[in-house]
């Protein structure tokens, strides 16, 4: 590649855009993955927690004397012993004006605030012995009244979900354009609906896991932590336990799924670190599946009332939306539990040129597990509400759903465009995506088949859902609110003495293929193959500081960081080669492991030779030559505050109208994530994302009884999507790179999840609509479908 300051990716970048396989995948296939759950350190103790069986209550007494005598037990901690070690944390941010949340600490002190709230911690030689001792802790809790339903919690005289709250309202906001009421007043049509989106949860197959190892002699704390965000936890552990940041090392090895769930702060991880600090021994905590269900963050839990105003031709004039999101007893730290609802009200109507809008958000406390950010934060709710209303309007106007959308999508030539909710879109491609989807799914043929089958009593439905996805957030996302959550990433790239490349980078890998993508990008800057680029991630001691992996920033921000670091090293190599070869560096380039003549491509010297000379024979270099073959680069996004992406999904379902069982037959996605670095990985991110959207649309729901008990907290009763029920997914692409970066890549990880549920909801309504039925609640269980059909 020619050394130049060109800001483009050229056709000479041979690996960006190619479907490279993930080298790390081979380890997993051989059973050689190394997860936190696999780690065993000498003298390591195992932690188990005694949890509140009640959703709300006052701790009268905790008697740990029998537990302390139980075989294998080393220590039993309660709040009194452990909490003083830790600075409490509060899940509020400044830019969410006037939001409130009570401070949290390691173990429940006087009151228990959800069923599952940890009250005592046992440390024993084995997990089994720790659990034996848990049974011996005598817990006397006086049961109190729990806040269970969000609407009831907002009543003036409702009990408070946590001590010290003036009300159960965590946060409230209203977004409004000037003419929204006029739009409804003069609308030819208004459609509306009340929607309920159930609580669900991440159910990563590897549960949360942490091994904390404090070495008192050196003052070093090492935490092996199954997380997406090691730097965030380095900062948190240092601040909340008053340790020097440089003495805190967080290592995230292989992580068995995260999806946003593993970047929040949890009582158990903090308590595990505290216990290690106290005992000076390694302590391991692995949540078992039951604990996961009552302590991992949950997601969604919205009740939305919405209406949409249209003119006589079916042009969308405005939406008016009221979202209540129910978050548990606390707002989660450090990102808060408000971001989800905030994105719901800001993403409503996002694909459409709708001029007016009002969105009200109320975030409400209750005595349940906290909810917070999970894959596609807010997107599925905004998308489902918007698209359900668009379909209702289409029915009302007698328009085909595709035509309805064609009339209202923001045209591809209308950018830059600012949405009614205030988002600035650089360049999206809704029209191109719609057109591609129509061809990909053979829409007209499907409609014909649907009509034919209906004559035979087979009820199929087709649902369409365009979407906008928020990716690559800048500091405007959390940083301005005072959160120590990095918006930038860092990379260090070096040429080894044998001419290979190592890249240490702050973005992390949980199976998305981050390391592969980074290796492709770096390889192209240095004229080597991706296999020659060793990428290191997930260790705060060995990689530069950065935000890591969330909000779809791995490829867009991490990739740009790697690209710039690679180019910096390229400049250093060419400068050195110029001195060795007595050539102008501008006439040199890197290709196929060599320094080559930039114009002719003739090989001048191997990279291995550069490495050898710079490392072993710097004495042969001209006086003053810089033999550095390491480049460090940090990059923070500027320009647009987010890189929005877009796409469209379609779902084909068959509803058994006698049993209410919905069968997913096929699913289509057309997606525009900007520059595609690796199409294989992009497609599989989309497929996985789609299934994470279909799960909650049909199966997944955290069920609670009227006393605040979660009643399906096991994998036998909480229904995750499995192989037999999920459809094949056809994927197409449109590529509109962002001009904010050289790489031009946007995010893709949440696109699948964003609209899959909306497409399925519309498909079911399309199937049962002719029977006069409608469903506005997910998951669409057989019971709810039967109710919609009037069978119950």
């Amino acid at each position, binding site marked *: 590649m020619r050394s130049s300051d060109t800001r483009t990716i050229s056709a000479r970048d041979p690996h960006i855009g190619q479907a490279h396989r993930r080298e790390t995948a081979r380890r997993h296939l051989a059973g050689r993955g190394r997860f936190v759950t696999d780690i065993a350190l000498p003298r390591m103790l195992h932690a188990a927690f005694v949890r509140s069986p009640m959703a709300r209550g006052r701790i009268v007494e905790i008697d740990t004397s029998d537990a302390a005598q139980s075989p294998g037990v080393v220590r039993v901690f309660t709040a009194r012993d452990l909490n003083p070690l830790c600075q409490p944390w509060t899940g509020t941010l400044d830019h969410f004006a006037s939001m409130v949340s009570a401070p949290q600490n390691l173990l429940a002190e006087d009151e228990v605030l959800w069923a599952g709230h940890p009250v005592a911690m046992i440390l024993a030689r084995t997990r089994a012995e720790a659990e034996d001792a848990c049974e011996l802790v005598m817990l006397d809790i006086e049961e109190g009244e729990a806040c269970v339903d969000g609407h009831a919690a907002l009543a003036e005289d409702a009990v408070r979900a946590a001590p010290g709250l003036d009300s159960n309202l965590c946060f409230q906001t209203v977004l409004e354009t000037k003419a929204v009421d006029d739009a409804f007043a003069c609308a030819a049509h208004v459609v509306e609906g009340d929607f309920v989106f159930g609580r669900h949860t991440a159910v990563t197959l*590897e549960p949360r896991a942490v091994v904390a190892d404090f070495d008192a002699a050196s003052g070093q704390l090492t935490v092996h932590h199954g997380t997406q965000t090691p730097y965030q936890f380095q900062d948190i552990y240092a601040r909340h336990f008053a340790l020097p940041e440089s003495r805190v090392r967080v290592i995230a090895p292989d992580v068995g799924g995260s999806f946003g769930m593993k970047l929040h702060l949890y009582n158990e991880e903090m308590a595990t670190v505290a216990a290690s600090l106290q005992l000076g021994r390694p302590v391991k905590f692995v949540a078992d*599946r039951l604990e996961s269900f009552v302590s991992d963050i949950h997601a969604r839990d919205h009740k939305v009332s919405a209406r949409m105003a249209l003119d006589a031709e079916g042009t969308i004039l405005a939406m008016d939306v009221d979202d209540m999101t129910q978050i548990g007893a606390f707002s989660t730290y450090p990102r808060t539990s408000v971001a989800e609802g905030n994105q719901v009200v800001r993403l409503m109507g996002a694909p459409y040129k709708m001029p007016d809008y009002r969105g009200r958000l109320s975030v409400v406390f209750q005595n349940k597990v906290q909810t917070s950010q999970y894959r596609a934060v807010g997107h599925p709710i905004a998308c489902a509400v918007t698209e359900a209303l668009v379909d209702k309007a289409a029915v009302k106007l007698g328009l085909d759903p595709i035509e309805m959308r064609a009339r209202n999508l923001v045209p591809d030539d209308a950018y830059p465009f600012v949405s009614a909710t205030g988002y600035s879109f650089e360049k999206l491609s809704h029209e191109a995506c719609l057109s591609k989807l129509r061809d990909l799914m053979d829409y007209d043929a499907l409609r014909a088949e649907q009509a034919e089958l209906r004559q035979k009593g087979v009820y199929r439905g087709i649902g369409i859902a365009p979407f906008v996805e928020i990716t690559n957030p800048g500091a405007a996302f959390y940083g301005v609110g005072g959160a120590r959550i990095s918006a930038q990433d860092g990379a260090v790239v070096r040429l080894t003495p044998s001419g290979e490349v190592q890249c240490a980078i702050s973005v992390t890998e949980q199976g998305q293929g981050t390391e592969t993508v980074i290796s492709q990008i770096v390889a192209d800057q240095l004229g080597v193959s991706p296999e020659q680029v060793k990428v290191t991630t997930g260790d705060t001691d060995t990689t530069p500081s950065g935000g890591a992996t969330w909000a779809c920033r791995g490829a867009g921000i991490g990739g740009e960081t790697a690209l710039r670091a690679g180019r910096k090293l390229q400049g250093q190599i060419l400068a050195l080669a110029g001195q060795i070869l007595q050539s102008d560096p501008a006439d040199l380039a890197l290709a196929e492991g060599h320094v080559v003549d930039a114009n002719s491509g003739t090989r001048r010297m191997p990279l291995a030779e550069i490495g050898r000379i710079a490392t072993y024979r710097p004495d042969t270099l001209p006086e003053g030559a810089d033999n550095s073959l390491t480049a460090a680069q940090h990059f923070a996004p500027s320009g647009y505050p987010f890189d929005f992406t877009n796409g469209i999904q379609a779902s084909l379902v068959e509803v058994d109208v006698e049993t209410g069982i919905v069968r997913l037959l096929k699913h289509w996605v057309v997606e525009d994530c900007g520059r595609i670095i690796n199409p294989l990985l992009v497609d599989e991110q989309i497929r996985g994302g789609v299934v994470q959207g279909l799960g909650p649309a049909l199966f997944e729901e955290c069920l609670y009884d009227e006393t605040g008990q979660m009643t399906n907290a096991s994998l036998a009763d909480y229904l995750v999507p499995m192989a037999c029920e999920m459809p094949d997914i056809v994927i197409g692409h449109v590529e509109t790179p962002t001009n904010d970066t050289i790489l031009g890549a946007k995010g893709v990880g949440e696109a699948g999840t964003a609209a899959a549920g909306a497409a399925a909801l519309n498909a079911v309504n399309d199937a049962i609509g002719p029977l006069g039925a409608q469903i506005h609640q997910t998951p669409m269980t057989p019971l709810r479908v039967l109710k919609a059909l009037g069978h119950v």
Partner: protein
Amino acid sequence: MTMDIELTVNGEQVRESVEPRMSLADFLRERLQLTGTHLGCEMGACGACLVLLGGKPVHACLVLAVQASGETVETVEGLSERGAIADLQAAFHDRNALQCGFCTTGMVVNAHALLGETPVPARDEIRDALSGNYCRCTGYEAIVDAIAETARKRASDAEASA
């Protein structure tokens, strides 16, 4: 109380003394450091801990180590090292049929057993065979593809050598 057990694991004779309460999964992971067998639910609902017991896939979390005494156990490490699943592994790798890798070992063990019983399964037979294996990352399609591709290749190789 502890009990002495003797079993064959990945072709090696193993003698250990265990508490009866120890599951085969914990025994493999903690005593033998065979950490390729993963634990996702410890109640037989996720399939991450599948191993071959007497040649058949079973949940190592639902079998006690003492129950496996006298039996033959094979884990993903054993299958991998003796080359029994090289083509499956290659197909999974090629198709990117895994992401975080936590379900993968159970998937591969199960796929190996499936292809032993049904050499050329239909797509819905593959999905049915995987009905107890939970994957949160992939959406399953790539896994089904990889298994189908392995079956197809094995069948055509067998035909070619016949």
